[in-house]
């Protein structure tokens, strides 16, 4: 058995940097603190890291076939847990996403990620699965849809959105890119509508494009009708953006979208997070203020500075160079995971590997995107960095199951 040490080194680098930055984020010069102090987040994070190493050991002891074999069983169990959380869970930060075990709390939704990944991979890897089969596709979407609904019931929109990253896995496994293209187009239209206050310009340009397409292409009735219907749908979507923003989204979500478009609308109110986060990162300059020398994060100007906004500490204290290192490590890890996935001999392992990559990527993109003001504020952690046991353990399990599968890749029969 040979574990992939490149991945392990990247993992250890990220976890260690995360731990240092958690200490920096909460550091109070006047209090004479120690990074080891268990009453501080940094001390507890170290415990979580130690526990995750135990988890890594356990994952490696267990037979590799265990994960595929019991994927559906785990999936069933986690659905039960997710269903129960709103009833037996305790409320933390407005979300009822925690189950208390003694003084510790765990977040079942963090574990739902790797379990869903296992279930998705198992289904994709099952005999007779065809991506172009509508029934197969429907079941796949159900596998990711059910946890999304249950998690959304806990009002944890961020984690629920993570499951959309599986669409990228489906794409890799053969799903038509149509859904992705439609999704990207819809997102583009949504953002354009928010950015351009006068929607007449948008409607006008759609009309212009429609006329051009009709004039330049073949003059078949069928084609013209399809183009006109398409244009009408897009115009309808533009008209519905306001409705969606104002009626479907909750007030705090509306604000987050509005702040993204114009962070200055209310810098002390709804724009506070984004504004302060950008100030913290922006003030770091090229080489940063130095470890423990940041002022914005440790003086609480940035909210949630050790969890969702941990990247601010990196930006402030280590500057652009530090950001480059961290982003570089993440991209390297993602590419390494893709590399590992592609060398798997089973479709299950490959689909699982892509799930790992896509889940990590989604967190990475959304989290950093939100701290630098490229994305609305969605409360999801930066993998391996953010403070918190459940999220660290969830990501560790996610990654190390892949490493376990990879270590035994030669033992499986090629089925692809």
């Amino acid at each position: 058995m040979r574990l992939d040490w490149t991945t392990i080194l990247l993992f250890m680098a990220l976890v260690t940097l995360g731990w240092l930055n958690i200490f920096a984020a909460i550091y109070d010069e006047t209090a004479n603190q120690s990074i080891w102090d268990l009453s501080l987040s940094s001390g507890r994070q170290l415990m979580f890291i130690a526990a995750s190493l135990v988890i890594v050991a356990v994952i490696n002891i267990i037979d590799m076939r265990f994960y595929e074999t019991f994927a559906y069983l785990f999936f069933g169990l986690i659905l039960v847990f997710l269903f129960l959380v709103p009833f037996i869970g305790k409320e933390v930060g407005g979300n009822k996403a925690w189950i208390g075990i003694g003084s510790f709390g765990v977040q079942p939704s963090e574990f739902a990620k790797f379990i869903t990944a296992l279930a998705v991979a198992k289904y994709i890897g099952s005999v007779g699965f065809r991506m172009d089969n509508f029934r197969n596709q429907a079941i796949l979407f159900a596998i990711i849809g059910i946890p999304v609904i249950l998690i959304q019931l806990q009002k944890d929109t961020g984690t629920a959105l993570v499951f959309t990253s599986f669409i990228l896995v489906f794409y890799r496994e053969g799903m038509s890119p149509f859904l992705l293209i439609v999704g990207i187009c819809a997102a583009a239209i949504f953002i354009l509508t928010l950015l351009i206050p006068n929607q007449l310009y948008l409607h006008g340009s759609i009309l212009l494009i429609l006329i051009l397409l009709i004039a330049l292409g073949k003059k078949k009735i069928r084609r013209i009708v399809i183009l006109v219907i398409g244009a009408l749908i897009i115009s309808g979507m533009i008209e519905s953006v306001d409705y969606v923003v104002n009626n479907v989204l909750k007030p705090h979500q509306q604000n987050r979208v509005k702040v993204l478009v114009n962070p200055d609308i209310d810098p002390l109110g709804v724009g506070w997070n984004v504004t302060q986060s950008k100030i913290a990162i922006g003030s770091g300059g090229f080489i940063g203020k130095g470890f423990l020398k940041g002022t914005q994060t440790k003086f609480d100007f940035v909210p949630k500075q050790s969890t969702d906004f941990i990247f601010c500490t990196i930006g402030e204290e280590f500057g652009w160079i530090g950001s480059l290192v961290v982003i570089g490590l993440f991209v390297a890890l993602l590419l390494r995971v893709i590399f590992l996935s592609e060398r798997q001999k089973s479709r299950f392992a490959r689909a699982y590997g892509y799930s790992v990559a896509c889940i990590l990527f989604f967190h990475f993109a959304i989290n950093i995107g939100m701290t630098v003001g490229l994305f609305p504020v969605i409360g999801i952690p930066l993998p391996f960095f953010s403070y918190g046991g459940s999220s660290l353990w969830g990501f560790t399990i996610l990654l190390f199951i892949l490493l376990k599968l990879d270590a035994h890749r030669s033992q499986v029969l090629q089925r692809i």
Partner: protein
Amino acid sequence: MNEGRREIVQFVFVLVGLIFLVKLFFIQVLDNKYAELADSNAILRQVEYPFRGLITDRHGKLIVYNTPEYDLTAIVKDIKDFDSARFCSVFNLSREELRAKFKEMKRRKEYSSVKPTLFIDQLSNEDFAKVQDRLDEFPGFYIEARTTRAYTTNALANALGYVSELSKGQLERDDKGFYKQGDYIGQTGIESFYEEQLRGKRGVRFKLRNVKGIEKGSFKDGAYDTLSIPGQDLVTGLDLDLQQYGELLMKGKSGSIAAIEPATGEVLALVSGPSYSPSLLTGRNYSTNFSLISNDTLKPLFNRPLMAQYRPGSIFKIAQAMTALQEGVITPETRIRCDKTLIGCHPGHDNQDLRGAIANSCNPYFLGVLRRMLNKGVSNSPFEDTRIGLAEWNKHINSFGFGSKLGIDLPNEKGGLIPTPSYYDRAYDNRPWKFSNIYSIAIGEGENLVVPIQMANFAAIIANRGFYHIPHLVKWIGKEGKPLPKYAERHYTTIDSSYFKIAVDAMQQVVETGTGQYRARLVDVIVCGKTGTVQNDPLPAHSVFIAFAPRDNPKIAISVYVEDAGQGARAAASIASLMIEKYLYGKTKRQVIEDYVLAGKFLD
């Protein structure tokens, strides 16, 4: 079918990473805005105000010092179990007033529920003593101390000036950026003239603060902090006892007393009447009192010794005599008839020599003197002749410090007026003028204007037999200062010092036998003086007297102006002699004269 999809996924991953790095490069490296915002977020600039310099008199007696003043501040978040009834009784407020105080506080620009905000400003000492021990009953309320000016005397208000919040205009004129809105600055008087020395240097501390505004230690271990440096103390040449006595004598009168030590130019007393107590323009009642004082029709803020311009009157005859002697147009023995055809005169004398003419203040004599001086026959044209003569006359008169500011160390000094040829050109609209047009300047009437400090300086010149030091209040700056070089310099007149003996003789005669009469005389010391009665129709004349004493090695030179008080020999001569007596002996023995002055009925 799935070919290239791996690369597309990889491409997306790398692309997102690159987008982040570009965006980060923009906000971290290219845009300085965020660094500045971060500093204004977390760095608190705290100004430390230095103590303002103290002011003492010539004997080291304290005149102006600093006294702590107490503001009551509140941190609203920390207010607990607030007993409003108890609070009202301790602070002597009604419920409505208390409610108003809270409203007022919350309206303040700097108001924050987590930072101390002004609640009651400038508690009096009594209030402070009363509430100090009970403050712990009201958590969330704090006392903040700062200093204001305090005075050991009710005198000297105009000379000292006052300190108050600087105005918008002053803030705009401050091109060095020293002041901020809300700072205090010396307004008028010594406080203004020596503002730069008195104010000291402010210190700045940079402190880190968290999002709640709570301090979290010093910025970079205080590397950018500066300590405040207290202002320098000023030692004046004023004699506080003499000053207070002068103000007592001037009580209820309009006018001024200026007393100078001739040998040094140090101002011993500078009285302006009417005046006010300097304590009124300090502390919590400043604004009420200021509007009262500045609206007073008697103008107590008008610093008469420096700003009131009067015609010099008969005293000017001494300067005329000196000038004529220097020009050689007369000798001490020159006699001129008291011819009253052009100008009136007092009865009882005729055809006197120079000393007699000064002692009796003979108007026709000095008319003749001026004629000889202005019309020397240098030119055949009487107009041109007068012009040349007047220019020479100007040179001498100006050397006595008339016609321009002396340069005393106080603001708002006036220079008076000595008419020059170009002045008369303007006055006569370039039509020709000659001696017969301008002769009233001969006896100190006409266009001449002088200020009282110039007249005191004139007395000092005669006392010194020909020179003066620029009159000044401040002897030196700092604890072990040296005399300021500007004031150590002797300014000589254009008159030969031997001629001054005649002036001294004449002034002695004025006091002993002439118009000065008995009120100016002292038993053990020879006082030299000269009366002046400045016409002020239709009101009674201003009473003027200049004097110095003792005759030899003089210790004090003085000018006294009492407005609308008639003859110089009465009000002004009495006050001047009392001041001299007080200064030389430390007390006065002539109760009758003092009572006469204090009663103030000079016209009866």
